[in-house]
């Protein structure tokens, strides 16, 4: 893993276009999913997806290969979203779940044709997305990073720029909230 990270770091230093192409392919699903969950908006997630990779190109020299590339990638994506939130006069991702401003997750309502597997999984998927949409963004985010992206708690602390203890407390609360939200969805 360390060798792979070092190779990525060297490639980013040189702004190697082939490496960037490969990374975009490799991380497209995970990054898009993360952005969709934290923004709650698929179209916006697409914009942030592209901007994240532009930023990776520009700031690639800052990645030293000592940590996982995905942790660094998610941190960049997160900062872009926070910057965007700030331009909307919000202080943090919490504003995404402000009841006055709340936009429910919209990924399930897309009009474009879906792959077969999406149709098959749609019912449970919509339930999960609706449930995630009901819990505050700060909990949604840690749940996605921990249980979908499978980052370690220390890596999450780096991505979110918060202490490990805060990550843990958010995870416990988020887990509780998710269970409750899914139960409500089923009921």
């Amino acid at each position, binding site marked *: 893993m360390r060798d792979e990270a070092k190779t990525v770091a060297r490639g980013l230093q040189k702004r190697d276009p082939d490496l960037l192409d490969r990374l*975009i392919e490799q991380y497209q*699903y995970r990054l898009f999913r993360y952005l969709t969950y934290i923004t709650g908006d698929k179209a916006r997630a697409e914009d942030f997806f592209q901007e994240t990779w532009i930023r990776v190109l520009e700031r690639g020299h800052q990645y030293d290969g000592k940590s996982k590339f995905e942790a660094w990638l998610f941190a960049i994506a997160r900062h872009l979203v926070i910057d965007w939130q700030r331009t909307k006069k919000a202080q943090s991702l919490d504003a995404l779940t402000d009841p006055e401003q709340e936009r429910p997750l919209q990924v399930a309502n897309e009009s474009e044709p879906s792959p077969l597997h999406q149709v098959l999984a749609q019912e449970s998927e919509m339930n999960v997305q609706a449930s995630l949409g009901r819990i505050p963004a700060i909990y949604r985010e840690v749940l996605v990073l921990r249980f979908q992206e499978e980052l370690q708690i220390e890596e999450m602390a780096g991505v979110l720029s918060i202490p490990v203890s805060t990550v843990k407390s958010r995870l416990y609360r988020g887990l509780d909230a998710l269970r409750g939200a899914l139960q409500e969805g089923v009921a």
Partner: protein
Amino acid sequence: MSENLHTRALQLVAKGRVEGLAQSESDWLSAHLQDCEFCNEHARQTDSALRALRTAAIPVPADLASRTQFRVRLRAMELREREPKRRMLWLACAASWIFGIASAPYVWRIFQWMGSVTHAPKLVWEIGFGLWWTIPALFAVIVLLLESAGRSEEPEWMKPGR
């Protein structure tokens, strides 16, 4: 069964999923879950919620990766084109500063001489000498400001290099 035991069991159910359990904690929890239907149901619900979260799929738009690759390559070209200009600018500034240091004693005498010829106050020709030194830096600042002004038409959050 005491309320404290249930509370501990529920805490361990969450801890097991978030951080993992020590062997002794795991053994204790397994034993408790065998005897307690309420806590067992809670553990099942937690696992079911996490399974649903892990298996939820969000389809990526088919051409998103290729569109992004195209934009990234364009931006890379832009950056490569800008690099030589930036390098030239710094080289020019460096050469100018080196020349400025080397010629400082002579320039000082020239300003002194011009001050005496024009009867300008000492402060005026000293300021003139100071400006002579700051011109390269001012020039670099102007170029950088012009560059950033060129990018100001993009939305704030999209500006590169932030």
